[in-house]
C-alpha cells in the first residue's frame, strides 16, 4: 500500500509522545506542589461547584479548558482522563503547527519544526504551571486559530475557516494574554491573504468576529448555568490589564521583592535566550533577504516578521508594568509564534537541500538532536550504564 509522505510525517508526530511515555512515564505529569495546576483540577471535577471564594469567576474564566476536561473526567478514571486531556492538546499543538507550516512553506520544513516543538522542554512544562494550567491547552487552541486563518487563504469556504479561527481565538483567551498576539495574527493573515486569498479585509474581520462572539456566547451560557455568571471573562480582564503605575505586579510579593523587573533585567533571563536568539536571526534575515522575490523567502520572512511584532509587543508590555518576559509561564504563550519564526529560519536554511532531496538527512539529524536534548532518556541511559559497569552504590 502506498503511503504518502505527509502520512508518515503525521505518524512520526503521533509516535513521539508515546515514545516519551515508554521512556519515562512521569514526563507529562506535573509537580504536585504547583497549586495553580491543581486549582484547575478542582474545576475538572466540580464544574458547577458553589465556590466559597471572594472572586470565583477569576478562576472560572478558564472555562474553555474546563469545558473539555470536565466531561473527560466524568467519563473516564482520573488517570485515563488526564492522558486523553494532555495528549489531545499535545497533538492539537504539534499537528496544528505541522499543518500551518505545511500550508505556508512545505511539508519538509513542517515536519522538522513540529518535531522540534514536540521535543521542546519549555512546551512540555510551563514551569510550575503544569499541563492542567490553562497555558498548555490554550496554546493548542491558539495553534488552531492560526491554522484556520492560514487555511482561509489557501482553501475554499473562507468564511467557514475564518469563523472557526475566531471561535478558537475566543477559546484561547482563557489565557487572556493571547489577546496580545491578535496584531501578529492579523499581520500573518494580511500578508498571506494579499498573496493567495485576496479576500476583502472587512468581511474577513467580520467573519472572524462572528466566530469569536459565537464561542464567547456559548461559554457565557455554560458559565451562567454552572456559576450564575454570564460575563465569565470580566473579572479576568480586570485582573490582567492593569498597567503603568497601577500594575498589580509593582506591588510587593508575599516573600518580599517586586514581581516586575525592567526590560533590561528581563532580557537577561535564561528562558529568553532562544527567544531573543530567534528575534535577532529574524531581524538579520529580514534585512538581508528583504529584496528576494522567491516565494519561499517571502513566506519565511513573513513568519519572522510576525514573530518580531509579537516579540516587540511583549517588550512593550514588560516596559509598562506587565511581566510577560520576566516570568517563564508568561513567556510560554509566545511559543506558537516563536515556532513559526523557527520554521522560517529552517526554510531558508534547507531550501536548496530540499531541492536536492537531501532533506532526509536533515530530518534525521534534527530528530536525533531534539530527542537527545529533551533528555527524557537520560536517566534510563545512565542507569543502564551504571548497571553494566557496576557503579551502583546501594
Amino acid at each position, binding site marked *: 500500500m502506498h503511503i504518502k509522505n505527509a502520512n508518515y510525517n503525521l505518524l512520526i508526530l503521533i509516535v513521539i509522545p508515546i515514545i516519551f511515555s515508554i521512556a519515562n512515564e512521569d514526563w507529562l505529569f506535573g509537580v504536585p506542589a504547583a497549586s495553580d495546576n491543581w486549582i484547575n483540577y478542582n474545576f475538572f471535577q466540580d464544574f458547577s461547584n458553589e465556590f*466559597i471564594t471572594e472572586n470565583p469567576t477569576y478562576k472560572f474564566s478558564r472555562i474553555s479548558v474546563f469545558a473539555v476536561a470536565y466531561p473527560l473526567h466524568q467519563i473516564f478514571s482520573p488517570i485515563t482522563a488526564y492522558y486523553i486531556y494532555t495528549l489531545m492538546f499535545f497533538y492539537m499543538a504539534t499537528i496544528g503547527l505541522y499543518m500551518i507550516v505545511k500550508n505556508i512553506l512545505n511539508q519538509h520544513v513542517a515536519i522538522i519544526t513540529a518535531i522540534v516543538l514536540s521535543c521542546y*522542554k519549555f512546551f512540555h512544562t510551563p514551569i510550575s504551571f503544569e499541563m492542567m494550567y490553562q497555558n498548555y491547552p490554550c496554546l493548542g487552541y491558539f495553534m488552531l486559530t492560526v491554522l484556520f486563518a492560514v487555511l482561509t487563504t489557501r482553501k475554499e469556504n473562507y468564511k467557514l475557516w475564518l469563523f472557526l479561527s475566531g471561535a478558537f481565538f475566543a477559546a484561547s483567551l482563557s489565557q487572556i494574554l493571547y489577546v496580545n498576539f491578535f496584531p501578529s495574527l492579523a499581520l500573518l493573515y494580511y500578508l498571506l491573504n494579499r498573496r493567495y486569498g485576496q479576500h476583502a479585509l472587512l468581511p474577513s474581520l467580520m467573519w472572524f468576529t462572528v466566530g469569536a462572539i459565537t464561542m464567547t456566547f456559548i461559554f457565557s451560557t455554560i458559565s451562567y448555568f454552572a456559576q450564575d455568571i454570564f460575563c465569565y471573562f470580566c473579572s479576568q480582564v480586570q485582573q490582567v490589564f492593569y498597567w503603568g503605575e497601577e500594575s498589580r505586579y509593582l506591588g510587593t510579593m508575599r516573600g518580599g521583592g517586586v514581581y516586575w523587573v525592567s526590560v533590561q533585567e528581563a532580557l537577561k533571563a535564561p528562558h529568553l535566550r532562544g527567544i531573543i536568539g530567534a528575534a535577532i536571526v529574524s531581524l538579520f534575515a529580514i534585512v538581508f533577504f528583504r529584496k528576494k522575490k522567491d516565494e519561499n523567502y517571502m513566506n519565511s520572512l513573513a513568519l519572522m516578521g510576525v514573530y518580531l511584532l509579537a516579540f516587540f509587543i511583549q517588550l512593550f508590555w514588560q516596559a509598562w508594568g506587565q511581566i510577560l518576559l520576566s516570568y517563564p509561564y508568561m513567556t510560554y504563550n509566545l511559543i506558537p509564534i516563536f515556532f513559526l519564526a523557527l520554521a522560517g529560519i529552517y526554510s531558508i536554511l*534547507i531550501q536548496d*537541500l530540499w531541492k536536492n532531496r537531501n532533506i532526509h538527512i536533515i530530518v534525521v539529524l534534527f530528530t536525533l538532536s531534539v530527542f537527545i536534548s529533551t533528555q527524557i532518556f537520560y536517566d534510563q541511559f545512565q542507569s543502564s550504564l551504571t548497571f553494566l559497569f557496576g557503579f551502583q552504590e546501594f
Partner: protein
Amino acid sequence: MMKKVKIIFNHFVDELKTDLLTVKDELKTDLLTLKDKLKTSLLTLKEEARSPSTKNNVRLLGVFLCILMLVYFNTQFIRYHYTYQFNYPCQYLKDSHILITQVYDYLKKFDPHFNRLNIWYQAGQKDGVAFANEIIAPESLGKPRCRKFTYGEEINLTEIYHGVFGSRYFSTISGGGDGTFTRYNNGNLFDSIPPGVYSYIYHKDMVAIFSNDDKKHQTALNTLKKIHKENLTEEELAKISLGEEPKGSGYAEWKYKIITEIAEEITIEVVDKKSFSSGLMSFKVTIVRFHVPKFYKKHKSLNALKSGAVKLEDL
C-alpha cells in the same frame, strides 16, 4: 688614483642600480602574477561559492549550528526548581497524581464543599526537599539518581499535600477563612496546639490529619484531645485562642468568650481512617470531627450553614 676609485665606485653603483631595477621588476612581475593568481582564485572561489553544492554545505553548517543551539537552549530550561534532566524521572509524578486524585475524592465524601475541613499535614523533612537535595547535589553527578532505598521513604509528601490543597482551591493556607491548611514542621509539631486553632473550629467542625507515620497520627489525636478546657490553664487557653490578637480589644474579648464556650464542651470523634498508596508511595488520612452541639445551636453562623452545604440537624 682618485679617478680610478671613482670609476670603480660608479661602476659599482651602476651595477647596484641595475640589480635593484632587476629585483624591482622581478618583484613587480611576481606581485602581478600573485595578484592575478589571487584574483583567479577568488573568482574561482566566488564561482564555487555560488554553486549549489557549496550553498548546501553552508546551509548544512547552519543546520548543525541550529541543532547545537537547540540542544543548548533546551538544556537551559528548568522544570519547577529542579534541573529537568537530572531528577525528572525520580519524582514519581504519576504516583503523586494518582494519590492526589484519590485523596481529593475521599475528602469530597465528607465535605463536598470543603468548608467544614481543616487539614493538618506533616511537612517533609528538611523543608520538604529531602530527596531533591540528594538528586541535585554536585557529588551525586555520575551516580544513579533514583536510588531504590530512598524510594517511598524520603519522597516529598509535602508536595502531594500541596497538590491536595491546590485542588481544593477554596481553602486558604492558614488563618481561618473558607478553608484551612496547616503545615506542621519547624518545631510546630502535632503535639503542640497551633495558635488560632479555636478559630478554625469556629468555622469548621472537622480536621483531616495527613501523615505517613502512624505515631504522628496518634500524637495529633492526643493534641486535639488537649483542647478541652479541663486540660488547659487560663493562660494557655488565652495564648492558643487569641494568637496575635491584642488583648483588651472588643474583638479579642468577644473571641475569647466564644472560644471558652467551645473549649468547655468540645469532644472529638475519629470519623474515619484510610491509607492511600500508589507505587511505593503511601500515606494515611485520619478524619476527626469536633462536637460542640450547644455552641452550634447558639451560633448559627458556621460557614457550612451559611453556604447551605449542610443543615443544622446534620451538625
